[in-house]
């Protein structure tokens, strides 16, 4: 029996039989799941699917304030859902059942373009649309290099469990632990952001077991391609485009994308911006639609019109991509402005060799403030990746001729 999940940091090894036994023992789950334990998160997703009911995944580092803003302060975070389920003999029985989970909804949160993060509800179909299941995939062993409460992590999870593959944690481990895990478990597939690999020390090490390497979440990094090819000499590299609204949509072996035939009618490019049809979106995007089309804010350079070929160039809105996390500068500015002594602020991204971009802020103050005080204040309201790392005190914030801030 193959492993379901293994994590050298938490020293957990669970095989699919143990998972089934564990599931048989449990009679409820938390509707609002906040956990740092990946196994708990995975198990709860499966339990909610078996029960065909809702699950809301929250990042463990959301502050109380962020949760109140997202869900309202009257929400009962301890709410339990009682399960009605048969006893299962094996995981295949569970898979057969969850494929019919038509009422199941999984809520994820994505950085909103106007201010607050927004809640997007996904169905089983929308999340597994691109999963491939066959005997060919049966022996895959997944290196799990994403946050399990975000879209990309959820997609890797489904790709793995639908084929009863092993999931080996790599996210938030150091390089030695990552390499050890890849070798120990003979990992064959890794899906990650370019930032996940960017800090690796590339020496002569070769990790031969990896056959498929998928990069996503950030603009493709051409410099990284050769280094990864050396580290994983037997791997085929794939670059994917995915969004929290729609999941993974395009894939390419470099930075130039073409559209899969199945999606031809659901994707269009208007003024170099990608639009997605509502048919392929999760719930929660309805009010952003323009005649059934969702403007993604992703700007591309069209290389060939027919067949369509393009590469990503930038974001239309002001979102800053920090190591694969999208950060909205307006959200941070709003909180900075509530600090006593802060007159005006501007938050912007600066290109960075470690994370793609780093969050910076210029702050105009009318009394003396210290950087640690500001950082400590922000950490009460914002997740760590949203907190500006370069804070500069200035006399005034420059504006453009139309009165907008110059980011």
């Amino acid at each position, binding site marked *: 029996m193959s492993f379901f999940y293994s994590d050298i940091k938490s020293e957990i090894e669970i095989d699919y039989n143990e998972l089934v036994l564990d599931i048989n023992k449990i009679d409820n789950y938390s509707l609002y799941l906040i956990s740092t334990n990946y196994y708990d998160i995975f198990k709860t997703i499966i339990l909610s699917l078996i029960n065909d009911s809702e699950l809301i995944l929250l990042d463990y580092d959301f502050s109380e304030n962020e949760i109140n803003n997202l869900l309202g302060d009257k929400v009962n975070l301890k709410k339990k859902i009682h399960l009605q389920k048969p006893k299962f003999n094996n995981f295949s029985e569970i898979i057969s059942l969850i494929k019919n989970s038509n009422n199941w909804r999984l809520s994820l949160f994505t950085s909103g373009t106007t201010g607050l993060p927004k809640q997007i509800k996904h169905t089983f179909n929308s999340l597994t649309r691109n999963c491939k299941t066959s005997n060919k995939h049966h022996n895959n062993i997944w290196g799990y290099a994403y946050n399990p409460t975000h879209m990309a992590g959820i997609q890797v999870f489904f790709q793995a469990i639908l084929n009863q593959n092993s999931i080996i944690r790599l996210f938030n481990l150091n390089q030695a632990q990552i390499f050890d895990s890849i070798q120990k478990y003979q990992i064959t597939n890794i899906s990650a952001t370019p930032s996940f690999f960017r800090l690796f*020390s590339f020496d002569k090490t070769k990790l031969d077991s990896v056959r498929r390497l998928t990069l996503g979440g950030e603009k493709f990094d051409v410099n990284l391609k050769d280094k990864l090819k050396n580290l994983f000499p037997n791997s085929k590299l794939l670059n994917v485009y995915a969004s929290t609204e729609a999941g993974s949509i395009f894939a390419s072996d470099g930075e130039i994308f073409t559209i899969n035939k199945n999606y031809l009618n659901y994707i269009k490019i208007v003024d170099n911006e990608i639009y997605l049809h509502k048919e392929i979106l999760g719930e929660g995007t309805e009010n952003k639609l323009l005649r059934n089309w969702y403007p993604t804010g992703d700007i591309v350079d069209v290389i060939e019109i027919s067949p369509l070929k393009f590469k990503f160039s930038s974001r239309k809105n002001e979102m800053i991509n920090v*190591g694969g996390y999208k950060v909205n500068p307006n959200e941070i500015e709003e909180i900075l402005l509530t600090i006593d002594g802060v007159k005006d602020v501007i938050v912007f991204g*600066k290109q960075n*060799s470690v994370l793609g971009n780093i969050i910076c802020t210029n702050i105009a103050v009318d009394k003396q403030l210290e950087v640690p005080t500001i950082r400590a204040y922000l950490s009460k309201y914002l997740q760590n990746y949203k907190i500006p790392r370069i804070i500069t005190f200035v006399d005034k914030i420059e504006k453009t001729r139309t009165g907008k801030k110059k980011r």
Partner: protein
Amino acid sequence: MDKKILKIINEIKLNKGEDELLFISENDLLREDIGLDSFDLAELTVHIEVEFDIDIFNDGNITSIQDIYKKLK
């Protein structure tokens, strides 16, 4: 140079609400020994670039204090 690097690292640690280091040694690993995460390393590379005009992480391969010194020499 050593003192400048120590000062930069301590500024990052103080900003996170952690204690200052009294000294660093060449063999210290940035993550394991000094306790910097990838956000701290992103900050470190900005401060070093301001001070020395070199983007030390430009081609990866920086894991220890020694690696930083090599880049700056």
